[in-house]
């Protein structure tokens, strides 16, 4: 963990408040994860409709997984895209705040140094958001498959997740 922490400042512009950036990312990720729990509410509501007085209704069909999970997938994709756009813009804007280190960065011998410093961390965190979103989608899929009566689930649920 210490080595990880030592390397992080090297990914952002010199002096950039990366701890704050990580903190904001964590808070936003937690909010999106909280929002994703709407899946559980929708799923449990749809599941209840399969039963009457505790008995499974004959011929009852569970709502497909895809329409239940799509708002979650979209929220993570949006989070990743917005986070990347806003934080890379903040990274560039940092070079005009208080002084103009942009003059130094634009005359660095390494042409891509400045852009790397502004883009790598937001891109890595956006990727983390997408990976975390995928993990959440998998967990919800397992819940959907394992806790929904098998005879009520139509086949090909997973493949439909990626068709919008």
């Amino acid at each position, binding site marked *: 963990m210490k080595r990880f922490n030592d390397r992080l400042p090297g990914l952002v*512009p*010199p*002096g*950039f*408040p990366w701890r704050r950036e990580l903190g904001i990312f964590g808070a936003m990720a937690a909010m999106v994860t909280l929002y994703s729990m709407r899946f559980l509410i929708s799923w449990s509501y749809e599941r209840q409709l399969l039963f009457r007085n505790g008995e499974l209704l004959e011929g009852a069909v569970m709502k497909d997984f895809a329409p239940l999970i799509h708002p979650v997938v979209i929220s993570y994709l949006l989070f990743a895209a917005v986070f990347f756009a806003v934080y890379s813009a903040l990274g560039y804007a940092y070079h005009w*705040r*208080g*002084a*103009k*280190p*942009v*003059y*130094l960065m*634009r*005359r*660095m*011998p*390494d*042409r891509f*140094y400045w852009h790397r410093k502004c883009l790598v961390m937001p891109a890595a965190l956006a990727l983390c958001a997408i990976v975390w979103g995928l993990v959440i989608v998998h967990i919800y899929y397992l819940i959907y498959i394992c806790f929904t009566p098998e005879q009520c689930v139509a086949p090909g649920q997973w493949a439909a997740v990626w068709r919008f």
Partner: protein
Amino acid sequence: MLELKNVRKRYASQTALYDVSLSLPRGEIVGLFGENGAGKTTFMKCVLGLVRCSGEITLDGQPICRKNISSLSFATSEHSFFPDLSAAAHRDFYREHFPAFSEKRFKGLMEFFSLPLHRPLRTFSTGQKNQIEVILALCQGADYILMDEPFSGNDLFNREDFYRLLLGILEPRETVILSTHLIEEVSGFVGRAVLLSKGKVVGDVSVSRLEEEGVSLVDHIKQTYNYRSDRVSRALKELTGEEQ
């Protein structure tokens, strides 16, 4: 040799530099003079590639690119350092990215100006910020050191001491291009004066030649810009109605 051939820069409807051609050999201290808006800052930004311009700018016959950009350094009154970093952190940054960085010169200049090493630069006074800006430009290891109004906000003693020190520490390969309004102050230190007006070079003169002719640099500049010495007394007369 830094050479500019027919360099032209336009901002929207205004031409900031108009076919500027100059040759700046190594080992000179060149004063770049001109009124506000004459094109001094634009000149420097064109040389550094910070703004796009037409014409040709070469360093030792090669166009300025990433391979030779570290031969140029820049000190600006806008400050090009990271305000949240300390002087020590800047030293480490320059050492990592500019192999010719002079640690010895950095240490000596920091001591000369009595600047704190470990405080963030945003906590420095304006004068101290100017000093660290100039120190970093001088220590980068560049052959051409461009300074744009580096001491606006510094007191007179500090400036004069610095110019004296500058003369002592510069190596023969190093050229300083100094843009300033403080002509009288630097007239004893610059070897050559380039005069800009409305984006054009209107004068390029060796200070030693002026001395031989018995003309001071200030008088030469006033003459070049058609400075009307009676304009103050005329204005006062018009404003007050009294003979001055």
